[in-house]
């Protein structure tokens, strides 16, 4: 039996790189297969929010919040995880943008991804509309992340957010003016609305009776504290002096609440 001597140096180097090449294939394929399998095990964890929560902040901003819990049982991490949400108002375009900070969900853990969107009710052009009208607001969601450092995913989803107006079906209904024995003119006004929001209405409703000449004949303020989901109905009576003819005038109603000052659409006086 004849034994071959040690291979020459160049041959050994060549052989080493050939083997490393094979090893590289094995490692990359194995890690990739493991990553694919682990990715299939990712699930929404119990406690994941089913919808958005609403909160009226003192600065007149409505905060929409949601929390997504993600169970990542595999050994690989989600990195650069970002969620961006854009809320639109039908016919008026962009209403609000929100999102999450760049976050990481480590392997073998459950990550919590909080999403927060702020709707500036006080400054938005459609803020007054949202005060009085329920709406289905289109929400576009984008999620970007990298898994195992190997693959990145971009997921977009479109959904609707049901907005409940805090002063839904708001009406300031003037009644027929009635002359009084003392020479004044009584103008009854009925204020009604329903709070469809998930937060209560707290603040002051101010009603002004303005003549056709633009002169404010009478003003009344009405403190309100309406719980979420409740209906509101209250009558007011204005007594106008002889110098103020409400005929052809307007009823101007405004709301002042925490961080919000809004005027409701004017109502014509009979």
């Amino acid at each position, binding site marked *: 039996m004849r034994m071959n001597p040690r291979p*020459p140096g*160049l*041959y050994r*180097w060549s052989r080493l790189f050939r083997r490393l*090449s094979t090893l590289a*294939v094995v490692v990359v394929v194995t890690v*990739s297969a493991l990553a694919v399998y682990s990715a299939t095990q990712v699930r929404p964890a119990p406690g994941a929010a089913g919808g958005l929560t609403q909160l009226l902040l003192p600065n007149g901003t409505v905060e929409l919040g949601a929390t997504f819990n993600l169970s990542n049982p595999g050994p690989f991490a989600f990195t650069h995880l970002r969620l961006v949400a854009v809320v639109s108002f039908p016919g008026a375009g962009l209403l609000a943008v929100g999102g999450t900070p760049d976050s990481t969900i480590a392997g073998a853990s459950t990550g919590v991804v909080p999403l927060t969107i702020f709707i500036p009710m006080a400054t938005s052009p459609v803020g007054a509309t949202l005060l009085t009208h329920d709406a289905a607001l289109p929400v576009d969601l984008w999620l970007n992340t990298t898994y195992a450092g190997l*693959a*990145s995913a971009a997921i977009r989803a479109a959904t609707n957010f049901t907005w409940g107006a805090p002063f839904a079906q708001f009406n300031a209904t003037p009644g027929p003016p009635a002359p009084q024995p003392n020479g004044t003119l009584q103008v009854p006004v009925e204020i009604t609305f329903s709070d469809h929001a998930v937060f209560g209405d707290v603040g002051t409703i101010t009603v002004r009776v303005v003549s056709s000449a633009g002169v404010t004949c009478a003003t009344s303020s009405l403190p309100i504290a309406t719980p979420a989901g409740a209906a509101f109905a209250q009558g007011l009576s204005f007594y106008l002096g002889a110098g103020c003819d409400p005929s052809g005038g307007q009823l101007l109603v405004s709301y002042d609440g925490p961080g919000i000052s809004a005027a409701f659409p004017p109502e014509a006086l009979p």
Partner: protein
Amino acid sequence: MSGQMVPPGARGETTAPPLFVAPAGRPVARLPGLGRRVAMASAVFVVAEIGIALVPFEALRRLSGLPIALGVTPFEVLAAGTVLALLTAARHFSKPSRAYGPVAITAAVAGIAYLLWLAAHATIAVDPGHGVGVTLTYGTVLELMAVAPALSLVSAVVTTLEDLRHPGERLPFDYPAGGV
């Protein structure tokens, strides 16, 4: 066998497969005959063609029937995979010859280029409707995979150098005769 190298001290090669018998203390090579090389290269081609051309082609062809946008077409993968399979087979066929190094370099460079090209187009967009869309990008996997042909390239360059400096030196180790 044109272009086939003869290891140092070779003599007595009268039958196929040729057996090179070296003086005492020198390694001995048993080079495969032409028929065996063709058969083995063909087998390598068939396996490579299935693995890197036909299976990806069929997978992409089936996916293209779904609402999925791929970065490459099935026929591009089939064509590139077939070229790579041919180069792989050619590399295997040329192993006992001086052409092995250059052919292996060509195959490795082609492999690197193919994987980097795939990496640049490694995007899958799924649009199941209902306002949902998913885009997956997996170029990093293919870039890492390109490390393998890069290492093969280094190996091929070293082999080319070895063949230039010491023709036939590697043959007894690539094709050991075993016991004589």
